[in-house]
């Protein structure tokens, strides 16, 4: 974890606190299903800045062993209420997040914010319905998720199994964000910044003004190879603009729960540029999609996890976009 300013809980302290909480809230992941969990007594979420907690999801595909816990999820505690940023990839993961919140505070959960439409970031929403929060997202998120919902459910239910998937359903946004807006958690301002098409066509950046923490969702990948479901040209532009905007720390959608900014952007920005440059060269020579998938970006292979699962698809998507330049 980098970019820490010394206010993070001492690890032993964190373990003791969360151990106590877990006895009450059943916070810990136990049993064989959690075999990939790094340490059996690690807290679900780490306090990366005062009142800001982030959970690191597994860098993995949906599988029965991780129950859909494959993306980062966070929450911010204000004087009067709590905001959740992304909810994990199943109702069960959402419930773990809910318990983690309740181990820290009993304040009402007023806002559940989704950084974009992907199932690993929104499927935990169901675990928060009883709190009756506003479900907040980019104004184009509902359309994107709606069109894909049926397939997201079918594919991911099959990947993690009926039991782990139980209770998971689509919970669409109730508060669409058209332009920059602010939420107040009580003496704590949360700023929401909808972006132009980049990772998807509905990326939303969330900032905690008090600590200068930016939650970038999948605009920032670390460890996990980026996945392109929007515009590669748009993504480069958004990252360039963002890199010029200071932040005390950022939370990526996948990777460590807290990273230093703008250094964290360098590997993904490089990946995007390599793909863009190499595809443009092929297009100039009238080469085909098949050619591109075979050769583009292979130099990045060892820099990322899950490369073989997503890279070729990224090249395919980028090619289909760039051929219209």
């Amino acid at each position: 974890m980098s970019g820490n300013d010394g206010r993070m809980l001492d690890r032993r302290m964190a373990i003791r606190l969360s151990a106590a909480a877990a006895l009450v809230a059943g916070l810990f992941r136990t049993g064989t299903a959690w075999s990939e969990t790094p340490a059996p007594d690690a807290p679900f979420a780490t306090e990366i800045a005062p009142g800001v907690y982030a959970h690191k999801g597994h860098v993995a595909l949906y599988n029965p062993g991780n129950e859909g816990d494959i993306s980062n999820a966070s929450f911010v505690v204000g004087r009067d209420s709590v905001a959740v940023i992304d909810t994990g990839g199943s109702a069960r993961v959402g419930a773990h997040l809910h318990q983690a919140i309740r181990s820290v505070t009993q304040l009402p959960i007023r806002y559940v914010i989704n950084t974009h439409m992907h199932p690993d970031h929104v499927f935990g929403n169901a675990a928060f319905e009883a709190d009756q929060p506003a479900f907040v997202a980019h104004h184009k998120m509902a359309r994107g998720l709606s069109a894909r919902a049926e397939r997201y459910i079918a594919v991911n239910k099959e990947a993690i199994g009926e039991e782990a998937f139980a209770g998971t359903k689509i919970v669409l946004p109730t508060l669409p964000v058209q332009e920059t807006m602010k939420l107040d958690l009580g003496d704590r301002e949360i700023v929401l910044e909808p972006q132009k098409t980049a990772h998807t066509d509905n990326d939303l950046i969330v900032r905690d003004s008090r600590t200068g923490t930016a939650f970038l969702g999948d605009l920032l990948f670390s460890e996990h190879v980026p996945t392109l479901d929007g515009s590669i040209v748009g993504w480069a532009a958004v990252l360039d603009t963002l890199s010029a905007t200071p932040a005390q720390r950022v939370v990526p959608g996948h990777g460590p729960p807290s990273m230093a900014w703008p250094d964290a952007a360098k590997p993904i920005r490089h990946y995007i540029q390599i793909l863009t440059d190499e595809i443009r060269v092929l297009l100039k020579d009238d080469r085909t999609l098949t050619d591109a998938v075979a050769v583009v970006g292979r130099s990045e292979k060892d820099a990322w996890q899950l490369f073989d699962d997503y890279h070729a698809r990224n090249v395919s998507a980028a090619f289909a976009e760039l051929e219209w330049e």
Partner: protein
Amino acid sequence: MIHVERRSVKVVAALAMAFAVAAGGWISANAADADEDIWPALQKDLFGDRAVVEDPAAVVLEAPYRAEDAALVPLVVRIPAAVASSVKKLSLVIDKNPAPLVADFTFGPAAGKGERTLETRVRVDMYSNVRAIVETEDGTLHMATKFVKAAGGCSAPALKDTDAALADAGKMQIKLLADGGGQREAQLKIRHPQYSGLQLNQATGYYIPAKFLRVIDVQRGGDRVFRMEGGISLSENPNIRFTYAGGSDETLKVVAEDTDGRTFTGTAAPKGS
């Protein structure tokens, strides 16, 4: 839901069935019968009692075994010169797709007599055999088959940016690629969202209506290269590379029509002509 294949009651029934399955849980319902060989029934629907014979001397199909993006699976069809001049029609079929007939390409005189290639991108909805079937002038049917592993190409929207896709619909680019003495080669790209009609809008509970290119007609100097009649299995922003014969008038003209009855046209001529 638009039925692309209207000649057959059975195919229409299969489509209706697929539609019903889509409403109830598309992937899992179909995965159950993934091993079932539906080709004999499909063959009967598409070609009646006529024999369809695997014939590598007449047609070769290239397809990736594992499709990286189910919504964008590249296919290449090659018809050797010895056969090309007698080929009337090419049909692309994906057995397990909700509308198995991707498209019929009916060739005209400007398709030429040399080796004929046609390359495009399709949606593959699940693990499926993909077939290229050519009909020669004597009425015989020759087939090449490839198995492709993919999932969800039809029900998953490929659209990365919905607004951009709709705003640019109909924009066309025609590029002349090669004229190395023999067959010419060109690439046709048309912006179109190619809505499959299989995507459920969760908010409204209705399926997003199908909207796709029904016809693409390509002529060189007033002679037909091919006329494509197609459906929802052709990928978003259709992209077709094809060979054709040169002539006194080298102008390529393309007319496309979508299911809303909108017509799009484009032309291209070699530089300096």
